């Protein structure tokens, strides 16, 4: 049978039996819209949870802790400690199959506190500083001005046209800090006319008596989310409203930090020093609450305020996987090597699993709805074939083969599937729009997404394909029964 003829005959048949197909078609629409809604929701939530709250495709390795039930420690009753994360471990981890990147992180092993933010918040904010260091190259492709996120305190070569940063002069091919006279900020406020001792961005440090370049820091995208989503509201009131912040507004934001002393304690190794931090970008690899520095600073500061061992061991090592599917295998290998996974990684795996299970349950419900519709379609077709028995006999008499009869009925099922699937997908999508509209009315909360849904391309294909498949399966037995009918038998009244 020619495709054109098939399409036209099938189309005319569906139109004339539309009342019969309405019920089962409706079932398909309900089932498929449910399918699209919940798969879309699952994918959307996964995007937010795994993509933004946790980082997909990463495994964060930490030193193994012994959990005695009461306490956690690096060693079991003080006997035989676990392996600290050092450069050698980083090399071993990089050899795991499927690992495409190894990014050590080092935290401050000493107290620090910061203050500043008058320009942004209208008043200075004091805070305990939690800081983390990572290799600048890790974020080089992610941040907008990677040249700013570097270790300025490493030796900087100059000459041959290569200039030095503010507050430094070129001496024997190296940028040396200029000497300066420190003025206490309080005095500076009292006598604002005092010309700055250090040019440009540089500032005079009290302990060195030289012009220093602000330490570049990154913060996580999440931090801004958290701030805008809840902190701004929580901190408003009393002292006045806290503004919502955009990324552009906070880039270049400066903060004074005292290393070696905080509200919680003081380093016994060295006298506290004060430095300036400057926010140069945002990164998903930055510590979620705190600031992230080039790792060189953290190593030096840890050595100065906490000792050499603290400067040689990493707090964690992030492994980047070739793809999300590799993560479980990598996690297993890491555990076998005697290391733990960061809580975040564990939780990401659990959250991903939970979302998958919930999505699966709802997909199953939609499959059941569609399956019921398919049974309904099967009944409808048996009825229709009974009604059209004589007509099938006539078609057979004028030249339709068994295959032609089967094709006609399966064609009708396909058309119903295409319609039901298409309308179902549309209805499901419409429902997601409505849900997002309702969701938009909810008060802000951290990580609140613009949409709770995501629709990968395969979802549309699956929705329609799935509807067609069930309709065709439902029509399969009726179609065979019709094809088996002898023409003479079909023609009898």
């Amino acid at each position, binding site marked *: *049978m*020619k495709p054109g*003829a*098939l399409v036209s*005959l099938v189309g*005319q*048949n569906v*139109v*004339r039996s539309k009342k019969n197909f309405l019920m089962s078609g409706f079932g398909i629409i309900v089932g498929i819209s449910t399918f699209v809604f919940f798969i879309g929701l699952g994918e959307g939530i996964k995007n937010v949870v795994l993509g933004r709250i946790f980082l997909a495709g990463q495994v964060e390795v930490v030193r193994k802790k012994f959990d005695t039930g009461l306490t956690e420690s690096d060693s079991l009753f003080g006997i035989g400690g676990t392996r600290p994360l050092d450069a050698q471990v980083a090399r071993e981890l990089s050899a795991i199959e499927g690992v495409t990147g190894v990014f050590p992180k080092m935290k401050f092993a000493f107290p620090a506190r910061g203050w500043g933010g008058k320009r942004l918040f209208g008043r200075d904010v004091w805070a305990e500083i939690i800081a983390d260091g990572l290799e600048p190259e890790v974020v080089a492709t992610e941040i907008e001005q990677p040249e700013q996120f570097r270790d300025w305190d490493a030796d900087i070569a100059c000459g041959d046209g290569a200039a030095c940063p503010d507050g430094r002069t070129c001496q024997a091919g190296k940028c040396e800090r200029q000497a300066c006279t420190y003025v206490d900020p309080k005095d500076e406020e009292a006598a604002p006319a005092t010309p700055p001792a250090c040019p440009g961005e540089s500032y005079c440090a009290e302990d060195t008596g030289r012009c220093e370049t602000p330490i570049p820091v990154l913060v996580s995208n999440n931090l801004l989310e958290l701030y805008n989503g809840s902190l701004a509201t929580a901190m408003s009131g009393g002292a006045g409203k806290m503004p919502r912040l955009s990324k552009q507004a906070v880039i270049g934001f400066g903060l004074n930090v005292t290393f070696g002393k905080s509200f919680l304690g003081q380093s016994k190794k060295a006298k506290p020093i004060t430095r300036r931090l400057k926010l140069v970008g945002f990164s998903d690899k930055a510590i979620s609450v705190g600031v992230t520095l080039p790792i060189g600073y953290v190593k030096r500061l840890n050595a100065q305020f906490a000792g050499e061992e603290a400067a040689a061991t990493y707090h964690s090592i992030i492994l980047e996987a070739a793809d999300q599917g590799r993560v479980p295998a990598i996690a297993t290998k890491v555990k076998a090597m005697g290391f733990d996974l960061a809580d975040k990684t564990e939780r990401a795996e659990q959250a991903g699993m939970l979302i998958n299970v919930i999505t699966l349950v709802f997909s199953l419900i939609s499959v059941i709805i569609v399956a019921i519709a398919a049974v309904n379609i099967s009944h409808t077709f048996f009825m229709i074939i009974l009604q059209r028995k*004589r*007509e099938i*006999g*006539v*078609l*057979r*008499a*004028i*030249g*339709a*083969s*068994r*295959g*032609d009869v089967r094709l006609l009925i399966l064609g009708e099922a396909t058309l119903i599937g295409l319609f039901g699937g298409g309308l179902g997908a549309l209805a499901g999508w419409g429902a997601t729009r409505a849900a997002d509209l309702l969701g938009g009315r909810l008060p802000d909360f951290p990580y609140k997404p613009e949409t709770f849904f995501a629709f990968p391309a395969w979802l549309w294909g699956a929705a329609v394909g799935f509807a067609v498949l069930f309709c065709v399966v439902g029509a399969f037995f009726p179609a065979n029964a019709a094809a088996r009918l*002898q*023409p*003479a*038998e079909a*023609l009898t009244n």
Partner: protein
Amino acid sequence: MLGLRPMIRLAKVRKRYRTARPDELALRDVDLEIATGELAAIVGTSGSGKTTLLNLIGGLDRNYEGRVEVDGRDLGGMSDRDLARFRNLHIGFVFQQFGLLEHLSAVENVMLPSHFVRGDSPVSDARARAVEALTALGLGHKVDEKPRNLSGGQKQRVAIARALFFKPKLLLCDEPTGSLDSTTGRQIIETFQALNAEGYTVVIITHEQRVSDAARRVIHIEDGRIVDPGRTN
């Protein structure tokens, strides 16, 4: 203009319906020849086996014993597909209840056989051929009409036009005037006579005297047996 080769040849054909008792035969050792170009009527009482016989000749029923040949081809040896193709191109059917698809227009009904052609169609422009067939039967002004808007005689002429779509060798008609009044019935019979004059071999089942009178040969069947082969004079 009787041809030498028989259009239809049945030898020792025996048919028993599956639901019937073992000794209850619908056709009992039927031997029959109908020559090319004949206009033959098959008459007999109700339940004598006329429709059963016509179904075997038309390749609509493959469960029988004996041999059925149409235009020199043994229908028993053909697959469902080949038989469908044979019916499509070489046999035209006309039924008492017309057998039109109510949701299709007259011309669409007439074109139906073209949808089931396998391979190259002998008719290049199906619609033009359908209109031509309808016009030849006096229905040129009703091509786009649905069957429900046509009279009984007009419906039967649409059915005849469809049967003639591929200009088949053989027309098989089961009580073609059974649902028509006498005047209309006569017109239909005249149509068959005219078609026979054009060269079509026509076999008509009937129990109406005036129909069998119009035939050149009348075959009598009784209780599954040919009691009078009605040799032409």
